[in-house]
């Protein structure tokens, strides 16, 4: 009888409190959004299930929890805390990305830079709300709209905030269709949204080959702290465009990135244990994340308008919204809004150019913020 009682007191049903059920509610919403609404299912399904997994109550000291040394989840989580998974994801991203539209119209890269202003605005906001500088930098990077970059920087600067920051970053990425369109519409006129972009010029193989080398040279020399992300990113891209290691490029953009995404999502989800996640800081992080994402979108669009004022060749300012690095969600939104105003307006490949420069921009920002906060 005593044995049975001991067993019962060790079950999750006995140990659970309201916080666990609250987290289970959040996890179920994520899983529902992924399966039912198909919002970013590749991210929300592993994260959502990870939230459920991480919030199964257990007896502390069994070596089961993600924060308990030598547990299986702790080993899997190692890839997050060391920044290994984000680095592998960037390798796959590089092997997927086609830079030809960016190379054909390099000035679109400026939109990718402008959209990073959300990061620095949020940095100030987070500091003003009382977050410590390292925490504020980790929260600010949500404005880059890049999940792996957010996780990477947070793992380096404020590992205790990985859960809420990752959940906020991925949630806002999934909510792109809700967050971005009203801002784009508010800041542009109908005439601006109807601007057609001329077809990009054909890009030679040599240009595609030279770009990753120049990119690595410039970005990683400028912000060496971005090497783990941009180093693998440009290497993946070189494998893709070289055409001599198709098998490796294929593996990087399929099996490798998929494996990393599975473990990244699952362990980040599992890191949201109720006692760590349900704090007032998490509320602040979610609020600041929304601000960061909105400011990033707005600054990209406004910079597009500014470029139209000073440049002879007009660009569609909607493209600025694709300067955040949520690939390809934000590019898709820009294209759809352009088509809504004029069905013959094809903005997708131009928006993808801004998107890919946004990936580079947010990784540079992560490197800059990391180097500002070293020590």
């Amino acid at each position, binding site marked *: 009888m005593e044995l049975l009682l001991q067993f019962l007191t060790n079950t999750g049903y006995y140990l659970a409190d309201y916080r666990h059920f609250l987290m289970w509610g959040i996890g179920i919403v994520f899983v529902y959004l992924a399966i039912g609404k198909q919002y970013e299912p590749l991210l929300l399904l592993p994260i959502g299930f990870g939230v459920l997994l991480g919030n199964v109550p257990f007896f502390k000291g069994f070596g089961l929890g993600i924060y308990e040394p030598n547990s299986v989840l702790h080993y899997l989580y190692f890839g997050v805390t060391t920044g290994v998974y984000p680095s592998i994801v960037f390798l796959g991203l590089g092997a997927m990305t086609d830079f030809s539209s*960016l*190379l054909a119209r*390099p*000035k679109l*890269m*400026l939109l*990718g*830079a*402008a959209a*990073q*202003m959300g*990061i*620095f*605005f949020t*940095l*100030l906001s987070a*500091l*003003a*709300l*009382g977050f*410590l*500088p390292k925490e*504020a*930098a980790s929260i600010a990077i949500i404005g880059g709209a890049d999940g792996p970059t957010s996780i990477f920087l947070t793992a380096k600067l404020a590992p205790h905030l990985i859960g809420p920051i990752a959940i906020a970053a991925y949630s806002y990425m999934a909510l792109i269709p809700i967050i971005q369109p009203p801002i784009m519409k508010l800041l542009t006129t109908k005439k601006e949204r109807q601007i057609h972009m001329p*077809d990009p010029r*054909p890009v*030679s193989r*040599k*240009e595609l080959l*030279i*770009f990753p080398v*120049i*990119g690595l040279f*410039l*970005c990683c020399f*400028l*912000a060496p702290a971005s090497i783990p992300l941009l180093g693998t990113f440009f290497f993946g891209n070189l494998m893709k465009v070289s055409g001599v290691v198709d098998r490796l490029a294929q593996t990087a953009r399929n099996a490798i990135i998929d494996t990393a995404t599975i473990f990244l999502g699952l362990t980040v989800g599992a890191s949201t244990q109720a006692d760590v996640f349900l704090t007032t800081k998490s509320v602040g992080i979610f609020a600041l994340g929304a601000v960061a994402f909105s400011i990033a979108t707005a600054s990209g669009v406004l910079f597009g308008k500014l470029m139209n004022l000073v440049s002879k060749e007009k660009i569609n300012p909607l493209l600025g919204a694709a300067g955040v690095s949520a690939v390809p969600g934000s590019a898709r939104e820009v294209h759809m809004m352009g088509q809504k105003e004029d069905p013959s307006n094809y903005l997708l490949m131009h928006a993808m150019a801004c998107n890919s*420069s946004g990936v*580079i*921009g947010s990784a*540079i*920002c992560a490197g*800059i*913020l990391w180097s*500002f906060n070293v020590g």
Partner: protein
Amino acid sequence: MYGLAAIQQANGWAMAGAGACIVLIGLAVLSFLISMIPHLTGFFEEKAQPPIEKSEITIKPKMIVPDKLPDDLEAASTVYISFTEDLGETFDLIDLHQKAKAVGLPHPYLSINRFRDAGILVSVGDGRFSWQPLSE
């Protein structure tokens, strides 16, 4: 500590200002360098060409490009065919477009689209195209 004092204390203004400037300047320089790549590759390709012997230089007859293509599609296609003979039997649309642009034919996109719609320019698979004059 909260508000402006907290920003001041953490050196926030400098971090935000410097960070924003670095990323803007960095990507602007990268964008400039990217725009230079075609010139760079063009320069080295020119250098790599073997010097042409004077005696080898043959004066090609200057091509006369019409200001306006004939309205009749088939007649217009003969102008295109004559200018693109050196592309071979089958060719990529990009090459055709570049060639048409290089010789200064008006509205290449529009014309190529009309040829495709009329079945004068047909796909032969693998992304290659060939001429199929209507009279054939």
